[in-house]
């Protein structure tokens, strides 16, 4: 068998609660070995998508393949190879850390107890400490430890750093990156803190209620987007060549954020680069870079 090129693959995946579609028509592919950020506004279905990947939800439409298998139909083929940290990293509050490790050992076929103990020791968390006595950042680290001790091929994290203060967030993402550096791990994480994503992730999936809006390697996404500034005009001529993501007009000036399908040759536009955060915000319809031109690029 050839090595899997995609750790996660979904086709027209949808999930419905009663008459309400929490996720609709989601088709995406997460390459093995990537660290993929899942971003989108509240209610876009990020959590639902992640729950579908670990079998917590059943698809109402389409299908999902995780490490080659449908997670809901074949939980025992998927779950042992997937580490999952749910939103707010739930842990049994009355348990001691040693008991959390016992839980992991007893409920998993693949479990690296030494790895878990070593990680907790490195974090300075004694095994007889109770979960309830830990700070939010420490609890998130314990949840990540439990997920990593499964020696997963895929790690799925739902807003792992959302509830943490900046310092704890930095430490959490640091230990996540260490784990990724050890190799062989694909990560899918959702976050609304865009600054984190650029540090940690190499792929991006942008989800809106209509489905996947943008998906691919972050480098390519950044390279493909440009800010055009020029005298006030109708952007129709640009739209023929490139997709205009967002436009803003002032009295004399028009600013466009475009996904350039080729080089922008038109001499009347000043062409500038944008960073990932600005691209994501533009797709979410949340404003336009205030000072669009960072650097001139030769076209």
């Amino acid at each position: 068998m050839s090595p899997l090129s995609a750790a996660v693959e979904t086709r027209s995946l949808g999930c419905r609660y009663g008459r309400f579609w929490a996720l609709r028509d989601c088709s995406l592919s997460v390459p093995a070995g990537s660290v993929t950020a899942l971003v989108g506004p509240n209610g876009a279905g990020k959590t639902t998508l992640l729950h579908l990947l670990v079998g917590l939800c059943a698809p109402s439409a389409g299908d999902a393949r995780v490490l080659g298998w449908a997670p809901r139909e074949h939980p025992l083929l998927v779950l042992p190879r997937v580490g999952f940290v749910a939103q707010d990293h739930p842990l049994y509050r009355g348990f001691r850390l040693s008991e959390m490790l016992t839980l992991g050992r007893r409920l998993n076929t693949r479990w690296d107890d030494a790895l878990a103990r070593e990680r907790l020791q490195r974090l300075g968390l004694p095994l007889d400490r109770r979960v309830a006595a830990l700070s939010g950042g420490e609890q998130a680290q314990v949840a990540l430890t439990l997920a990593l001790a499964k020696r997963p091929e895929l790690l799925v994290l739902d807003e792992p750093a959302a509830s943490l203060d900046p310092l704890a967030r930095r430490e959490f993402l640091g230990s996540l990156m260490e784990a990724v550096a050890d190799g062989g791990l694909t990560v899918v994480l959702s976050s609304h803190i865009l600054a984190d994503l650029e540090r940690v992730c190499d792929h991006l999936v942008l989800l809106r209620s209509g489905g996947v809006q943008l998906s691919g390697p972050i480098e390519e996404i950044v390279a493909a987007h440009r800010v055009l500034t020029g005298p006030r005009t109708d952007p129709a001529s640009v739209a023929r060549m490139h997709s205009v993501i967002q436009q803003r007009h002032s009295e004399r000036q028009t600013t466009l954020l475009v996904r350039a399908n080729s080089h922008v040759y038109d001499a009347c536009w000043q062409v500038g680069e944008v960073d990932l955060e600005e691209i994501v915000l533009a797709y979410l319809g949340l404003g336009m870079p205030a000072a669009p031109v960072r650097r001139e690029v030769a076209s």
Partner: protein
Amino acid sequence: MIWLTWRQQRTETLIAVALLVALAAVLIPTGLHVASVYDQARIGSCLAQDTAGCPDALGAFENRFEGLLGLVTWFTLLPGILAILIAAPFAIELEQGTFRLAWTQSITRRRWLTTKLVLIAAGALLAALIMSLLLTWWRTPFDQLGNRFDTGFESEGIVPLGYTVFAAALVIALGAVLRRTAPAIGLALIGFIVARVVIGGFLRPHYLAPLSATWSGDPATTGPDLRTAWLIRQDLSDAHGNAVHNLPSIADACGSDLAAKFGDASCLAQHGVFNHAIYHPASRFWLFQGIEAAIFLGLALALGAFAVWWIRDRVS
């Protein structure tokens, strides 16, 4: 999974055990005391054969323990409390979202559900069994005295097992739907009491059609044994059990005062007035226990099946 369930239930299980120990600490000494008084006052032989002094002895025995008996009647709420203790960790797991941690380890949701529900049901049954054995033993002397249906039915035998499992299933089903422990427990307690009142108060007399007996008021005739029976109604009737039309005039003729339950029985009998009773005989006690336990266990199974369906399809 068994280890995890036990670890999650540990605190509540220990509280339930402490409750049962406290119950035993109350019931065993008082029960021994009641039994010794029962023997010393020769209540047993009085019940077998009415001799001089027996009515006084019986009255004294009943008066002496009336308060204690009233107190122990409250223990009929214990199944609800034991069930809440045993089922609460399940509701807490759904409220706090830790089920997502459990379900994404390498186990199936089915195994999680099966292990938890089987262990909770077993725990509830065991706790109820211990409670019922204690109470049934404690009440033995009182059950000889009279109608066991009235005060003993809900704390003796097998119905406490049905009550406990039902209350636990109610906490689990409500906990699954509401995903909040406190409202689930509150509603379960209300539902438990309503079910007990409705089924015990309105359904239980109709598990079987009551027997009807008509017998002459002549002191030489003996009617059915009503002392230990569950009496639904007793009045005066004609030979066929129908109401007597001219009862007031007959009573006047016999010099009886029916309101004061005073009457010349043989005079009334001569005028064709009979005793009439509608009742469940004492021999039906265990049959009724079986029917009521089956009703509550059936409700518990239905609630359990509903909770399983809800959790498998709707909780994520």
